[in-house]
């Protein structure tokens, strides 16, 4: 089953990602990000990273996507804009793309891939929790302070000046 469902999610990810890239309508592009995010979450599950998968959905769908949708929906000019020219500076773009492709392909092709047995599924949250509070406690705290700062900043910005 894993194969079929994997390819299903693969299709979903690629298809929605290509809509994001090629759609002339910004709203469609934003909404199809939903498919991409869910597809990526599914990829994480295939990688035995269930916690990361669910976090992906919470943060990217529940947070970032909604933020994007808000930004685009509530800006009158953007929703009405139709991107008339699909691409410009093609030469420069192609160069960059090829450069990146080569940079990716060199390690991929240089590596000797082996087909191992699929790992048995095991839960990861306990390890993540333990690691967060032992080895990575400093990073964790720094991240929380950063988020707290962001929270306070957002509240200050949103406050009415009456």
């Amino acid at each position, binding site marked *: 089953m894993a194969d079929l*469902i994997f390819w299903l999610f693969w299709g979903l990810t690629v298809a929605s990602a290509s809509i994001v890239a090629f759609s002339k309508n910004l709203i469609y592009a934003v909404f199809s990000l939903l498919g991409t995010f869910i597809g990526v979450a599914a990829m994480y599950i295939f990688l035995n990273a269930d916690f990361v998968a*669910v976090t992906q959905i919470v943060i990217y769908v529940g947070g970032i996507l*909604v933020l994007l949708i*808000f930004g685009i929906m509530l800006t009158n000019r953007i929703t009405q804009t139709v991107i008339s020219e699909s691409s410009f500076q093609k030469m420069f773009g192609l160069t960059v793309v090829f450069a990146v492709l080569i940079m990716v392909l060199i390690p991929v092709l240089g590596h000797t891939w082996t087909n191992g047995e699929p790992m048995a599924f095991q839960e990861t949250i306990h390890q993540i929790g333990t690691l967060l509070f032992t080895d990575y406690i400093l990073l964790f705290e720094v991240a929380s302070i950063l988020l707290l700062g962001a929270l306070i900043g957002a509240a200050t910005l949103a406050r009415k000046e009456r």
Partner: protein
Amino acid sequence: MIESMANWFLSLTWFPQMELASVKLLSVLLVGAGLFAFIAVNAIVLVYVERKVSAFMQVRLGPMRVGPYGTLQTVADALKLLLKEDIIPTLADSILFRVGPFIILISAIVAFAAIPFSPTVTAADMSIGLYYIVSISSIVVVGIVMSGWASNNKWSLYGAMRSAAQIVSYEIPVGLTLLAVVAMAGSLNMNEIIIAQGGSSNLFHWIPLPLPNWYMFNNPFLFIAFFMYIIGATAEINRTPFDLPESESELVAGFMTEYSGIRWALFFLSEYANFTLVAFLTAVVFMGGWQSPFETIFAAKTSLLVLLALALAWTGYVKTKANRLSIYPLAIIGLSTIAAWLFPGFAIWITEPGLFWIAMKVLSLIFLLMWFRWTFPRLRVDQLMYVSWKVLMPIALFNLIGVATWMWLTGEIQF
């Protein structure tokens, strides 16, 4: 069980010698279909119940025509909605308009996968069940915003905006209250959370009381958390007093203004699915899920006697205060007490965990939310945000610290 069903189903088809993978795939599909059927039937029943509850609270009769006591009314309504013309406004974005309701419905159905219906029946008993449900229910926002925007109607857009803001901001206090429970149980797995709530029925660990060891009775912080979760959950599923996205006196019908027929029915379906989901989640997290409130047969018998005494006192109180005879609670409790004392089978049955108990808990929670809806006025947008950020959030944080302190005091965690 489901896999054997899938095997049997495949043996009927043209290719009986399918590999294991397709059996699993088919069982997944079967589970999905089963959940969908459950949600559909559940919505039909709940709509009827809600109508009757609202009618009784408003001194009305409610549906009475179709079927005995109007029981088939919602079936008739569903049929009517199926037969209605499917209208898509000319200026609406027809693709997103079509997709929107399905995203909401699918996220509602998928979330049910982690719900434990009984000790043995859980569609997907995953280790991160609770987190999974919380995350999946955040997809609803996208569907709502999608359909609200696609309707090309200012009221829909307002509804969608309000809904998104509301759900996103209420996710935080809800998450924090759930976090307190997770800290208490030490697990995100739904069944493990339920199992952690079994055992000794000592209120606050020191005072023995005839109460089950559910998390809502476990310690004072979780008792507060229970009510806060109910408030937050009411807001997350857009019900009164937090039904701003579809507030009919302001926004006509909010994000579903332009929908009609079967598409509108999908909204309705997912609304009630989310409603039930929240009730299940509360029952699992705070009320011991499928566990019976009575631990042993003896406890069941004595508790029923205590309840019977309480019911008698209540009946007498009502009789003296209002000169009415409230017979129903007395009859129900009395009959079950007699049955528990006379028939040992019954006593054993009510002490066993199972679907019955979680269903009872879910139903009473659903009644509570309906009761809210038919009593309260609606909040304003800024007041809604006030409740979320300035009341629920601080108390939830305080609760979280309180629970941690409690655990440290009772020796459940050591530093």
